[in-house]
């Protein structure tokens, strides 16, 4: 893994760097699996190796792969890096021993979750329980971050000229890839089912709204890559996605507000149903749905905004 990172730093060709980044991300994800962080591994895989590689490729397609002078502020960089590295080494000198169950980190707050989350929320996956309920507000914030990013990207890359002017080069080029088209056609329903499974299985196994949202978005992205973004945008209308992105945040928020109106605190799902545990379960389900919707919509928006740029670039002589 270190080698990969080093190679990324050294490789001049940006394209190779992006590819290596994909590998690096997969490696990280495997490391997470080894360290029992399955949910995180899941996310890292779909995000790091999937979406961010794709986005970087799109950006690369727009900006050109060459890098001129590799490093010109090396001295400054080296100094900063060495200082912060030395500080960290200094800091980890007496950090509690790795992997021991008696470290303070495992003593104070965490055991409570493991012991009580089943009775309190009725969810087997402790990570989901914390994510959606105990620290639900963080997740709300995270959702808003995604939403912010999509708003920002839309604001930055809003295409001014109408869509139907350009001829869809994507589709034309892909016409010849018969095998690919058929395979993708077979795969997409599978992927969508898988996304739904991940969405609603998050209580029991790794997964949840975020991962499902990304997988769902990746199905659409796959479609747009093979059949052309024009075709894909006919399937999923732009304004509709925009509304969906907002809707997800609103779902999450209104779950909170409903519990507020029922006389409990914000995001206290126990208020939703007479039985607090059922209420928690329902709340978590709804909230995850909100997360899934917004994330899927936001990712699709970001990807489309990027790929629209590619196409408009081709048409307008630069």
């Amino acid at each position, binding site marked *: 893994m270190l080698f990969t990172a080093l190679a990324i730093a050294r490789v001049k060709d940006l394209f190779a760097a992006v590819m290596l980044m994909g590998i690096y991300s997969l490696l990280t994800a495997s490391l997470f699996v080894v360290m029992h962080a399955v949910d995180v591994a899941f996310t890292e895989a779909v995000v790091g190796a999937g979406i961010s590689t794709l986005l970087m490729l799109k950006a690369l397609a727009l900006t050109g792969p060459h890098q001129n002078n590799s490093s010109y502020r090396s001295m400054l960089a080296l100094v900063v890096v060495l200082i912060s590295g030395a500080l960290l080494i200094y800091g980890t000198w007496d950090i509690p021993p790795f992997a021991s169950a008696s470290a303070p980190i495992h003593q104070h707050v965490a055991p409570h979750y493991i012991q009580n989350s089943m009775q309190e929320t009725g969810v087997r996956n402790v990570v989901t329980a914390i994510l959606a309920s105990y620290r639900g507000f963080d997740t709300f914030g995270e959702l808003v971050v995604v939403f912010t990013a999509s708003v920002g990207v839309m604001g930055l890359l809003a295409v001014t000229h109408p869509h139907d002017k350009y001829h869809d080069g994507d589709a034309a080029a892909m016409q010849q*890839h018969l*095998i*690919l088209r058929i*395979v*993708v056609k*077979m*795969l997409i329903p*599978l992927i969508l089912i*898988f996304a739904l499974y991940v969405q609603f299985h998050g209580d029991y196994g790794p997964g949840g709204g975020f991962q499902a949202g990304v997988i769902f978005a990746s199905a659409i992205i796959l479609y747009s890559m093979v059949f052309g973004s024009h075709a894909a945008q006919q399937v999923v209308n732009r304004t509709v996605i925009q509304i969906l992105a907002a809707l997800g945040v609103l779902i999450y928020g209104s779950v909170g507000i409903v519990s507020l109106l029922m006389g409990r605190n914000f995001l206290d799902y126990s208020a939703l149903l007479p039985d607090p545990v059922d209420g928690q379960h329902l709340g978590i389900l709804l909230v995850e749905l909100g997360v899934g919707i917004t994330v899927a919509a936001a990712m699709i928006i970001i990807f489309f905004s990027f790929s629209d740029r590619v196409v408009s670039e081709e048409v307008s002589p630069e």
Partner: protein
Amino acid sequence: MEIMIDLLLNIGSGILLILGGFFCVSGGVGLLRFPDFYTRMHAAGVTDTLGAGLILVGLMLQSTHLIVLLKLILVLLFALLTGPAASHALAKAAMHGNLKPLLYRDKSTR
């Protein structure tokens, strides 16, 4: 009887796993040692389909829950669908990008 079946399953899965592992390693070596892109692609293809397939079937024999079996089948299906499709697309792209296969007689030039 059940013990027998268990034993058989274990042995079977072991054999499949070992075979799969072998194909994988050989494919990996091939990927590294073969002289040009297209032959390397062949090596990769072997690991992708045969190696992966064998290992997954081997795992299937060990699985205890239905859902696990189902997921394994799904993974296998995925591997079998996407592997060749990706290889195909890759080869096509390579040809498209004017990367000539290294034919036998060209060997001297390399």
